[in-house]
């Protein structure tokens, strides 16, 4: 099944994908901006006091993260569907309508977070302000909107998948996106018992991130390898099935590493520990996936006697390779650091978690989604071989350097908290403040802010490149 991703012009599905990517990039910027505000507030607590308090800036920072990634994921699927199925996406008009519904809902929710901020703490708050569930704080009315949009998206994917040619990538996505959409429901009902509430909330957060999102990344990596380096479809799809089995196998019961914090029975310690120990394995497999296919395809090319790179989109491929490394580093290494319950007892809720969160979300998801944006830029501009520009190199260097810097700073801060707040002071209220007032912690927070600013600068280069590289004469057409 040959790919025709270079002829994205004229496809309504691909046009819709570019809309999704554009809004995703805007919200990505908002995520970084509110992250910077929150980082400044750690260093200067009075900054924007009573205008945009830390809790609100943080809420906007992490919810914008989820939203831009979901938008970019939908965009990626709408982009690859015509290539994989050989037909235009079914129900594209409804898809476009739902896009505007989604955008409108997100804009209203952001405005409410910014200008209303806090509700009367009764049912009105849950329905119209926010639900208070970290990462998925959308008010109930927006929850219903998100479900409608997600179901419309899944319907388009399934109808197109059934009617067109059925590739392994589309089949995996069809199953994966059902789970993605369905799991959201687990975070929608409210219980008075915080333990029960957290139990279901983890179903959305953990199973999204460590099961459905990771499987999605596997499918996108497979598509990218076929389109960018001409990797053999059968080989790539075989990898994909292995990864799917391993990700679901370890990711689903790996949820146990959260359960022991919410009063669930003791056996969750052991289930959580076992499957958490296994969770890095599929990430290793994904790491081999890219390395192996790249090596094999380039080797076959070199064997012809011509030393020509097999990569037809250098910036996108850079982000895809960064995804393989970043996933392994952020989700694998920084995850394994503190997932086993014996040590998580000390690290949970410290800046260790934040360090892991920053590098894992960036390495595992942001990288590959930015790569998909570059694939879309290549397709919509009819570029045959897309090269790195000065802006794309600055973007990748500053963003990766900035995120790595933030991660290291937060790791140092987390280590101080583990030693002082938890191990020495026994997780007491006084220990919490002692852990935060140490010199190492304070300096780590300064560095986090500086590295956050570097990341934001890199984002500006990224935007400049995404907007201008299509017309750059450096590319081969």
């Amino acid at each position, binding site marked *: 099944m040959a790919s025709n991703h270079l002829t994205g012009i004229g496809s309504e599905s691909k046009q819709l994908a570019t809309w999704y990517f554009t809004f995703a990039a805007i919200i990505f910027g908002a995520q970084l901006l509110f992250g910077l505000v929150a980082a400044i507030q750690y260093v200067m607590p009075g900054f924007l006091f009573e205008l945009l308090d830390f809790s609100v800036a943080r809420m906007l920072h992490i919810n914008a993260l989820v939203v831009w990634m979901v938008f970019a994921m939908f965009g990626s699927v709408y982009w690859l569907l015509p290539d994989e199925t050989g037909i235009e996406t079914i129900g594209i008009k409804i898809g476009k309508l739902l896009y505007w519904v989604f955008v409108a809902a997100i804009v209203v929710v952001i405005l409410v977070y910014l200008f209303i901020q806090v509700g009367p703490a009764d049912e009105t708050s849950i329905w119209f302000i926010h639900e208070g569930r970290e990462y998925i704080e959308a008010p109930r009315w927006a929850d219903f909107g998100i479900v409608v949009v997600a179901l419309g998206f899944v319907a388009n994917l399934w109808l197109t998948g059934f009617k067109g040619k059925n590739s392994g990538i589309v089949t995996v996505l069809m199953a994966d996106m059902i789970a993605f959409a369905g799991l959201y429901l687990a975070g929608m009902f409210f219980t008075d018992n915080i333990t029960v509430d957290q139990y279901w909330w983890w179903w959305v957060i953990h199973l999204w991130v460590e099961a459905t999102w990771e499987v999605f990344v596997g499918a996108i990596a497979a598509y990218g390898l076929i389109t960018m380096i001409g990797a*053999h479809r*059968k*080989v790539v799809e*075989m*990898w994909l099935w*292995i990864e799917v089995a391993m990700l679901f196998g370890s990711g689903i019961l790996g949820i146990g590493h959260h359960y022991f914090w919410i009063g669930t029975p*003791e056996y969750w*310690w*052991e289930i959580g*520990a*076992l499957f958490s*120990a*296994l969770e*890095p*394995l599929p990430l*290793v*497999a994904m*790491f*081999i996936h890219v*390395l*192996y296919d790249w*090596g*094999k395809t380039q*080797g*076959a090319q070199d064997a012809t006697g011509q030393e020509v790179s097999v990569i037809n989109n250098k910036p996108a491929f850079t982000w895809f390779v960064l995804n393989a490394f970043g996933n*392994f580093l952020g989700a*694998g*290494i920084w995850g*394994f*650091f503190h997932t*086993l319950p*014996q*040590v998580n*007892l*000390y690290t949970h809720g410290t800046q260790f978690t934040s360090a892991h969160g920053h590098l894992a979300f960036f390495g595992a998801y942001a990288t590959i989604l930015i790569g998909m944006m570059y694939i879309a830029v290549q397709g919509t501009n009819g570029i045959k071989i897309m090269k790195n520009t000065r802006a794309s190199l600055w973007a990748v260097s500053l963003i990766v350097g900035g995120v790595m810097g933030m991660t290291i700073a937060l790791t140092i801060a987390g*280590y101080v908290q*583990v*030693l002082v707040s938890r*191990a*020495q002071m026994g997780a007491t209220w006084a220990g919490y403040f002692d852990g935060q007032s140490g010199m190492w912690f304070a300096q780590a927070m300064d560095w986090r802010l500086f590295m956050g600013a570097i990341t934001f600068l890199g984002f500006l280069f990224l935007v400049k490149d995404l907007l201008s590289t299509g017309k750059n004469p450096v590319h081969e057409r």
Partner: protein
Amino acid sequence: MIEEVIMRQDIPLDDFLTIFVSSALVMVFGGFYVGIYTAVKVNLLKKWTMPLAYMFWMLTAYCLYLMGSLMHVGEFTAKALVVAAIGLLLLPHAVYFMQHRVHEENEH
């Protein structure tokens, strides 16, 4: 009825750094093992480097042991870590075996 209270053995302060470093090295050495194994199989590295890959796996297994002992993991978790170490050892072999067969079938 009074339920049994489960007491966990505390981790000494001096052991935290070793735990974090060894757990990071589990992944770093594991990555080297898998990376070198894969690179040799796709002819990016010479065959004589393969023992290095297994040496990294042994370092991985040692770091897992060190990390597990310092964390005072229970019997079941210790077994789980052994399974994870063996899984990592076998993973590239199994994947390469399948890869090789698929490549042969497709003359790729």
